[in-house]
């Protein structure tokens, strides 16, 4: 089940925290890792944000650059772990 507002929450967080040029706009499919917006070190803080916000634990082997490469992919990952919690 989709979590209400999840994609926009992630999108807004990434825009606020990682986008340096506020004239750039992100979409749900903008490549974040391969696009150079979020690097592998910054991914740790993004993961921490998601874990805090949704009270989940994302194992390191699931927090791959591929799984974090767009808002859509991140949302799918979060939904998977929220569903496991239920």
């Amino acid at each position, binding site marked *: 089940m989709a979590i209400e507002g999840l994609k926009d929450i992630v999108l807004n967080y990434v825009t606020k925290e990682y986008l340096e*040029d506020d004239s750039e706009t992100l979409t749900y499919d903008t490549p974040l890792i391969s696009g*150079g917006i979020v690097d592998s070190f910054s991914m740790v803080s993004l993961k921490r944000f998601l874990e805090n916000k949704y009270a989940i634990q994302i194992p390191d082997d699931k927090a791959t*650059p*591929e799984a974090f490469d767009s808002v859509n992919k991140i949302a799918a990952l979060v939904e998977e772990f929220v569903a496991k919690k239920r």
Partner: protein
Amino acid sequence: MSNIGSYNERVKNFNWEIAEKELGYKPGDVINIGWHCTDRICQQGRGSKVALYWEGHSGAEKTYTYNDIRLATNTIGAFLRGLGLRAGERVCLFMDRIPELYLGFLGILKIGAIAQPLFSAFGDESLFVRLSNAETSAVITQKKHAPKVRKILDKLPHVKHIIIVDHDGTSPLKEREVGFSLEKAAPVEHLEIHPTKAESPSVLHYTSGTTGMPKGVKHVHYSLISQYLTAKWVLDLRDDDIYWCTADPGWVTGTSYGIIAPFALGVTQCVLDAGFSAEAWYKWIEKRQVTMWYSAPTAIRSLMKAGDELVRKHNLSSLRHLASVGEPLNSEAVVWSEKVFGKPFYDTYWQTETGCIVISNYPGMEVRPGSMGKPFPGITGTVLDPVKNEPYAAHGKIGLVALKFDWPSRMRTYWNNEEAFQKKFRNGWYITGDRSKLDADGYFWFAGRDDDIINTAGHLVSPFEVESVLLEHPAVAESAVVSKPDPINLEVVKAFVTLKPGFAASQDLDLDIMNFIRRKLSPLAMPQEIEFVPSLPKTRSGKIMRRILHAKEWGEEIGDTSTLEND
């Protein structure tokens, strides 16, 4: 047959004149890295050869011949000169790995100015400290990074120009800003190259200090001599190679071996300006038919993690030679690369201060997995007894990696900090700050740092710098920063924090502090873990005992605690 041939024969008959002759240099001549990397190759009749294949994260591609980079670097040099920039002034490159970074670097050198590359992920505090120390005159950047420069501009009176290379007119230029488009600028056929000599300053790279702020490592144009020869003999670069150095020119590997050496050798190199992804990297090797690949242990371990199956999906048979730098290459990675690529990664060891590879494994020489290798011919290295400051008489003892400081690309000083430079020497030896042992056959084996500096993914982070910025956070009373082991990055930053009255530890505060450091310093410096503690271990004189916290993280003996303060 490799370029180096027999390592032992090279050691016996070595002289840096080998490189000088190949580069057509005699003592006292003009030597300009910018010219050597572009005009000289064209004068040899290789102007139509591809110098650079570039691909951005959006899939945009650009190809430059040596004549193209000659013209582009002339054009940038002329533009900078037109702004009034002169020889000796510091010009910062603050960009992603776009072509203007590589071409701008050489354009700066052509006019005799000093190139100061800074990692584009640096936050405003990291940027300010480095621009302020260097009294930088101009910053070349992209519009996406310009806000970080604007934020600190009031405190940087020396910065006269901010050159935005992708200004498209969609937002107005601000104070001291000027737009520049390499594609729209009229190509400059002839540029008067500044007559730099061997000791003229060329590049200023910043490196983390143990107890103080970052230090500017000053290099000179003569560095070309050893950068050229080490690339030829260690990386085994050849005329028909397609070379890929994965390092960002914000760090020394990305300039010494990502710009200077390959272009001076007239080699075709390729640059992928995209975040790390195992699949994307393999695709890039396959697409560009990469033959020589120079990467880093963190990347190699990440590739290992991505699995062997992914390797088999790509045709990587073009790969001829592989090398690694930045941190110790574990033997598992060497064994893995032999299994999946059919050849080992050759570990190379050097530092920002050395300017070129100083200890290495060489083509044709037995690779001992996990070893740093042997000193480059012409370079004397040893393991020093830290008490006597003399080389150990017997092998097998762990001591300080020390070098006779006499090769062309050694740093000349730390910018505005000769005192710190002099402290790097003991008993006539340059002390690298690393520890190792020597085996009976002269191979060096890395044993760790000799100070508190954290090596994360091959980049050095100063605990002092992180602690200083942590104290700027409104909730932080005291902090101590140490490394903690990490399976991919070797080490990551961990912070122990005590809080001011009125603040309580929470997950949100933890994240807030992490992001605070990331924005101010860089993602590399961001603590991957923050432990809130009621107090920090201190000596009776009040000095925080980082080593106790470090020992705890690494599962080591805590050692002498007799000076520990009793709570």
